[in-house]
């Protein structure tokens, strides 16, 4: 029952196709190892005043990785990742402050809780076929509802929020170090690496492959016997867990959590921006995007702290740095249709193909 290969009146026919090399696991993992080692030296390399920026990069990378899994690979465009981020952050502080639980355990609890939230809301949304832009806005509404709920609930301190209590000395168990200690960076880095690996192996697993297939065509996947709902929810749960870990790390580093900060729409947006800048639906995109977006606002602010001569009439009027930041974001979006990593990869593929 084998086809004779048809179509081909002459050779060279396959010139007209895009090929895809099976991705090599070793290569990616090797690059990851090298990047990790190089990144781990950052606390020694970066000027101290930039350490906070480096931490922000890590948090962005975690959040964007979570968002990218759900929206980029899973095709479920989320505009409400603040919900998972906030659940992670709140689980951390509530358990730590209220019950003296180690932040590490709280982190796991937060991840589990966020995953449960994702599964619950996702189930309802998919059950009722809420899709596309409607789904995006529904996730947003859920995040906003959580924010408002936290705001009005005295049990989680309402708008006052939580402080992580200061300790007299450093403690791994309590996840607290001296201000600006390199441990924060290393732990953040480790979390990013773990999240990266989680996504990497998930995508290579059966579930991950189904998730991508479902993104490409849900009905076709169902027709082949894939239980669409189950794998959409699995993907959402993992993405939510990663985002929650980002939230817990955030809480431990910034030591302050309130509803607007961790559940506000700014977090939902912050999860998206690095992924888009780096390249949606690529493994490295969110990480690269975070490295660009994280320092961007600081760079523009530094650049314009003392406005140049020509603009000195604007001195004392804030906003110029944000204007520059906005212009840069616009330029990046216009110039890099597939994000930085996506665009570069495309160029490489094109070059390789045209040879």
């Amino acid at each position, binding site marked *: 029952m084998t086809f004779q290969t048809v179509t081909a*009146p*002459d050779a060279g*026919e396959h010139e*007209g196709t895009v090929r895809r090399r099976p991705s090599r696991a070793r290569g990616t993992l090797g690059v990851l190892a090298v990047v990790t080692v190089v990144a781990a030296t950052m606390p020694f390399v970066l000027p101290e005043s930039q350490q906070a920026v480096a931490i922000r990069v890590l948090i962005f990378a975690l959040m964007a990785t979570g968002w990218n899994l759900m929206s980029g690979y899973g095709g479920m465009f989320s505009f409400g990742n603040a919900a998972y981020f906030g659940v992670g952050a709140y689980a951390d502080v509530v358990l730590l402050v209220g019950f003296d639980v180690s932040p590490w355990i709280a982190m796991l609890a937060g991840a589990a809780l966020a995953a449960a939230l994702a599964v619950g809301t996702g189930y309802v949304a998919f059950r009722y076929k809420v899709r596309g832009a409607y789904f995006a806005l529904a996730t947003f509404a859920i995040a906003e509802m959580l924010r408002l709920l936290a705001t009005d609930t005295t049990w989680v301190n309402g708008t006052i929020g939580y402080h992580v209590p200061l300790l007299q000395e450093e403690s791994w168990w309590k996840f607290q170090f001296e201000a600006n200690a390199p441990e924060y960076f290393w732990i953040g880095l480790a979390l990013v690496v773990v999240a990266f690996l989680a996504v990497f192996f998930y995508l290579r697993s059966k579930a991950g492959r189904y998730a991508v297939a479902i993104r490409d065509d849900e009905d076709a996947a169902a027709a082949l016997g894939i239980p669409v709902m189950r794998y959409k929810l699995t993907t959402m749960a993992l993405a939510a867990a990663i985002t929650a870990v980002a939230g817990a790390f955030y809480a431990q580093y910034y030591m302050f959590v309130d509803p607007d900060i961790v559940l506000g729409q700014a977090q939902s947006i912050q999860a998206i921006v690095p992924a888009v800048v780096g390249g949606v639906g690529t493994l490295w995109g969110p990480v690269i995007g975070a490295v660009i977006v994280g320092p961007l606002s600081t760079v523009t602010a530094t650049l314009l702290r003392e406005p140049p001569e020509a603009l000195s009439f604007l001195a004392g009027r804030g906003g110029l740095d944000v204007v520059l930041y906005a212009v840069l974001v616009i330029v990046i979006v216009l110039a890099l249709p597939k994000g930085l990593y996506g665009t570069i990869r495309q160029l490489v593929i*094109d070059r390789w*193909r045209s040879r």
Partner: protein
Amino acid sequence: MSDQGLRIEEVSAGYSGLQILHGISLHVDAGELVSIVGANGAGKSTTLRLISGLLRASAGTVTYAGERIDGRRPHEIVRRGVVQVSEGRDLFGPMSVDENLRLGAWTVRSGVDELLDEVYALFPALAERRRQAAQTMSGGQQQMLAIGRALMSRPKLLMLDEPSTGLSPKLTWEVLEAVRSIRDRGVAVLLVEQNAAQALGISDRAYVLESGTIVLDGPGSALAEDARVRKAYLGL
């Protein structure tokens, strides 16, 4: 004479760094019915997309009525009378048959009602469904609507991409009959068809496209007799 028609010279084109057409040349004179036949993936649709401005050529020229049209955008090409019925039909799904047809006459400012009557006369099945939304119609009716919509712009050159695909045998006939009668009204037609035998049967001339290169051309009836064509495309 030929500068009244379409002339493609040494055109190459492709998708994001991937070349599909390798310097093809062809022409369609006024009032001619010309077909392009070729294997799946040979680049037939790509050729039509290129002419109608949906795709840009990376090299070569396309002229119509003596004027360069490559690099122009689709609506500018439509205004010159070169109109395509695409493979996917691209109907305005939620709109009624009537509205689809009237939109087809976008570039025509007068006599739209008469045109409409002509199209309904050509496709009575459409006349019965004036108010029906395009997306609720069956495949064949949608195909007729797509052709009808293209006719509404009083094209001078009509390009059809596989108009009979998915149609019942009965409708296939009706559509190809319609194509012939369109040509008979003086409209030039460039036709891409899987049913190469039928297509060649009604064509004045035809080209054979293989892997983005034109390998044969000649009168339709002559190609239909050509041994290579018969073997490769007619399944004989």
